[in-house]
């Protein structure tokens, strides 16, 4: 009784676990139960039950409701799909003027809007692409095909790679100095001589449209949300779901709305990249001290000046993190959107992975990462740039960069011209090194992979088998063995113990949605993989973070490593693991672990860093040892921040698990991938995406609530 009074929470948790396990043991596995393929798939089978709702027939295998809930939401994907179809094809037909045929045509409104939108995006992408690579679409857009036939000279020739490389180096120098310029020059040259120029420029043109648009929309909506409570309230739930929604899942409905190609990819990228930008803008603006705003007002700022000259620059730090996120998402999407026909490095990467040509995949992946880091650093340098008012410069000094660029252009054109004479018969290497005609290290890597495989095959295989048979399979079986009711009790109970009735209701709603969807079993598999990944990631991340924190240099080093790793598009992580472990669950899980360890490590370090210095001194003066200080002072105080890291780790892990479907998993991701090639996949893809997002949100809600209370309790904020 004494104990019970002393640790009431502990006993509540124990009681919850007891109820959970009692339920697990009390409810038997039904004899007819198999790992469900059928419950979700819309096949006809006489053993199925069926119900009709909203005119949609849902067929499913019925079990004891305690074991698995019937998929009462099974009509939702079909309904979403039909609604989308109706919107696109039948809703509000109107007369629209058609430029090409010079007549009015009847078209549904939504179709017309999306077509105009895509045409606009296509134009932007083509414009940049043709400046970089040459082409005639842009000229045609202003004139006509007939005109270009009559005037073939008007075709854009594209810039020689030497000019682009040197130009980016000059820009980098202007923004960030010598180091950045050198980096820009080296990476551009690398891309060129390794024969990745064309796909790289295709990807770049995609990014140069998607990233600025996402930035502008994100900033604009963030400002709107800051100014109006109503806008914020309307945006908030969407932002929340989008944060944990896997990028894959958005692809499918967008496919229906916008079709296939780069333009659709840009729109999807914006859908994914804008929410974090909004959130960070809002966060930054909120954190501007009121006195700074007053100072702006007293300086006589109009509302516009106050926003553009005081608020946004002062909130710069958070907004820059937003920009960084936007760039990350754009590159990540540059790969993923290859699934819906975007051209560029992503397409090559997927192709190479499909053919198991690890060497090629590695080269493409490296190029993406190089450009990603370059753009990230350049945007950062741009925002931090300073003006020198007192440099008494003459015309040449002031315009040296532009002048230099002019010289480069002339030299580049001359070089290309000489190249055309010198390389008379083959390719003009001074203009553009054609794809796969540059130096390639693919063979080297492939041989390396083969060697590793031959040499370590026994060990890798043994490890693989052990992991799958002794760890993963049993864990998966345990997850699937949970009756739905028991899971629900566990989650809702945890919600109640952590955050009271409100939290319990929220997580209950989220869990019920998943349980009532046709994919509960799949969701369990996704959760199991994510759990495994998160457990290992956190162990590694917390350990590495703590160890690195002991020394200032290693701390900074580790944070930099995290920065760089975070810039890699998520897909790139699949390359090395496939190299080592082939197409197995192990590969996916290792990719998950590597990817999810980044936030775990980063937040551990930042959490430990946030412990006030005064407390360190106080502790040292009380004569604690290093370990005592770590465990009695630093960990308890850093713990809330570290838990936010756990939150991010979960989101990262979920993303990677879903992407892992590309290698082959039997979870929600597999179905999302499947929905991509399904004509009626939009509804399924979206619902699946929401399911994954809700898994993330359940943990998000629990962790945030806990952290909030803990912080209040410790009096830190």
């Amino acid at each position: 009784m004494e104990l019970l009074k002393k640790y009431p929470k502990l006993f509540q948790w124990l009681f919850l676990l007891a109820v959970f396990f009692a339920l697990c043991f009390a409810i038997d596995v039904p004899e007819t139960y198999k790992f469900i393929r059928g419950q979700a798939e819309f096949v006809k089978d006489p053993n199925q039950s069926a119900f009709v709702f909203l005119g949609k027939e849902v067929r499913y295998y019925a079990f004891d409701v305690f074991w698995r809930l019937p998929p009462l939401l099974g009509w939702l994907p079909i309904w979403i799909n039909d609604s989308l179809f109706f919107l696109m094809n039948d809703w509000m037909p109107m007369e629209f003027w058609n430029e090409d045929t010079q007549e009015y045509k009847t078209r549904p409104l939504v179709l017309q809007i999306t077509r105009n939108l895509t045409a606009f995006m296509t134009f932007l992408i083509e414009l940049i692409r043709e400046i970089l690579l040459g082409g005639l679409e842009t000229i045609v857009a202003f004139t006509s095909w007939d005109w270009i036939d009559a005037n073939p000279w008007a075709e854009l020739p594209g810039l020689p790679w030497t000019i682009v490389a040197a130009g980016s180096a000059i820009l980098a120098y202007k923004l960030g100095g010598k180091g950045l310029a050198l980096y820009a020059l080296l990476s551009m040259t690398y891309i060129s001589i390794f024969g990745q120029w064309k796909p790289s420029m295709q990807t770049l043109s995609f990014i140069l449209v998607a990233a600025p648009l996402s930035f502008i929309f994100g900033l604009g909506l963030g400002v709107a949300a800051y100014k109006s409570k109503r806008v914020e309230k309307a945006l908030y739930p969407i932002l929340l779901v989008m944060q944990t929604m896997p990028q894959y899942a958005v692809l499918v409905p967008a496919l229906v709305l916008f079709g296939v190609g780069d333009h659709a990819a840009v729109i999807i990228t914006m859908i994914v990249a804008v929410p974090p930008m909004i959130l960070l803008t809002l966060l930054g603006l909120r954190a501007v001290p009121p006195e700074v705003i007053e100072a702006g007002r007293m300086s006589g700022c109009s509302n516009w000046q106050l926003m553009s000259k005081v608020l946004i620059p002062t909130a710069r730090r958070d907004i820059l993190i937003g920009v960084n996120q936007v760039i990350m998402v754009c590159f990540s999407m540059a790969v993923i959107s290859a699934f819906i026909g975007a051209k560029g490095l992503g397409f090559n990467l997927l192709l190479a992975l499909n053919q198991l040509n690890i060497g090629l995949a590695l080269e493409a992946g490296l190029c993406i990462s190089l450009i990603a880091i370059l753009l990230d650093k350049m945007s950062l340098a741009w925002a931090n740039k300073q003006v020198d008012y007192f440099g008494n410069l003459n015309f040449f000094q002031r315009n040296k960069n532009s002048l230099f660029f002019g010289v480069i252009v002339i030299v580049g054109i001359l070089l290309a011209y000489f190249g055309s004479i010198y390389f008379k018969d083959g390719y003009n290497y001074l203009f553009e090194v054609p794809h796969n005609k540059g130096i390639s290290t693919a063979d080297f890597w492939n041989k390396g992979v083969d060697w590793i495989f031959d040499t370590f095959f026994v060990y890798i295989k043994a490890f693989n088998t052990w992991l799958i048979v002794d760890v993963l399979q049993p864990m998966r079986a345990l997850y699937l063995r949970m009756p739905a009711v028991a899971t629900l009790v566990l989650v809702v109970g945890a919600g109640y113990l952590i955050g009271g009735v409100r939290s319990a209701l929220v997580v209950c709603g989220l869990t019920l949605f998943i349980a009532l969807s046709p994919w509960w079993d799949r969701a369990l598999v996704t959760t199991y993989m994510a759990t495994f990944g998160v457990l290992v990631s956190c162990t590694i991340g917390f350990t590495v973070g703590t160890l690195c924190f002991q020394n200032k240099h290693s701390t900074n080093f580790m944070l930099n490593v995290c920065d760089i790793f975070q810039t890699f598009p998520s897909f790139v992580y699949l390359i090395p693991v496939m190299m080592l472990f082939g197409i197995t669950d192990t590969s996916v899980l290792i990719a998950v672990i590597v990817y999810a360890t980044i936030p775990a490590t980063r937040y551990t370090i930042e959490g430990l860093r946030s412990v006030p210095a005064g407390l360190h001194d106080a502790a040292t003066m009380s004569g604690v040892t290093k370990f005592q200080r770590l465990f009695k002072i630093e960990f308890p105080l850093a713990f809330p921040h570290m838990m936010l890291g756990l939150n991010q780790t979960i989101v990262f892990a979920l993303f990677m698990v879903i992407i892992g479907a590309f290698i082959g998993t039997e979870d929600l991701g597999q179905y999302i991938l499947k929905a991509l090639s399904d004509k009626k996949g939009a509804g399924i893809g979206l619902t699946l995406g929401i399911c994954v997002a809700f898994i993330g949100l359940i943990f998000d809600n629990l962790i945030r609530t806990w952290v909030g209370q803990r912080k209040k309790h410790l009096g830190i904020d």
Partner: protein
Amino acid sequence: MSEPVIKCQSVYKIFGANAERMLKEANGNVDAKTFQENGCIVGVNNASFEVSKGEMLVVMGLSGSGKSTLLRCISRLTDATGGKIFIEGQDLLNLNNKELIDLRRNKMGMVFQSFALLPHKTVLENIAFPLQIKGIKTEDSINKAMDMVKLVGLDGRENYFPRELSGGQQQRVGIARSLAVEPDIWFLDEPFSALDPLIRKEMQDEFLRLQEKLQKTIMFITHDFDEALKLADRIAIMKDGIIEQLDTPANIVLNPATEYVRKFTEEVPREKVLLIKDVMDEITSDNMGDIKVSKDEIIENVAQKILTQEKTVAVTDGKNNIVGSINPAKIINTVFGERKNNH
């Protein structure tokens, strides 16, 4: 007499949902307690006063007394709930947005407790900021800002960022920024409260030097009574949104209007605050010695001179006319004697 630069008539600031309705119903008799029970908080309660050109009014009060709120009403960073405020005869509360911006761009400058510098701009850019907002050319604004940098003694640091400066230096930037547009009215909201005592004293002296030179109309907010005494032409002491007393430093020390004000004056070293003219007597027929003191001297500075005399000392004005007298007993009585209303 010319028109006062700042004129407040029964200014109220009440926070809360039904503030305006409640103020109307209260009919000029605002009781903080009843308002609080109805979910309203009274920030400023019936403030009326005038500040004339070149005068420095120091508003003194502890935290939560409404002094900052009063200042924000007069700079219209927040809208007063009731009453009228006139800035050089213009009805402040009736200005539209554009007129208000114009007023701020040309007539007002403000210094903040936490400096409120823009973190992304250098010292120079911060000071030039109000000028650039006005639309002045970059080159002109930078030149003007450079003059300001010199005025506050920050030469050589103009390209530093605020985060690279000490608190005192940051506040010098804040002061320079508020003066860049050459405003007539200068608001200072606890400008020296965040500084170390030594720096604070240095900044106060610097501030007095500037004011001597610039002769602005000033509203200065502080919670430090000594600071108020040192700087003010007149002091307004606030408590719970009400101005308890508004008078010259000497009168406040000599004749505290309420018990609350008296508590502040108790510990004040009078010889450092009072001037001869505050305590001198009429011209007497007693024979006075040859020693004369000016009526504008602080007692402390001439006390020794007077106390070593046995006779009454003559007090003169600026033109050396005798305007009064003072004897050693009076000095001793003022400094050590019973204080008025004491127990």
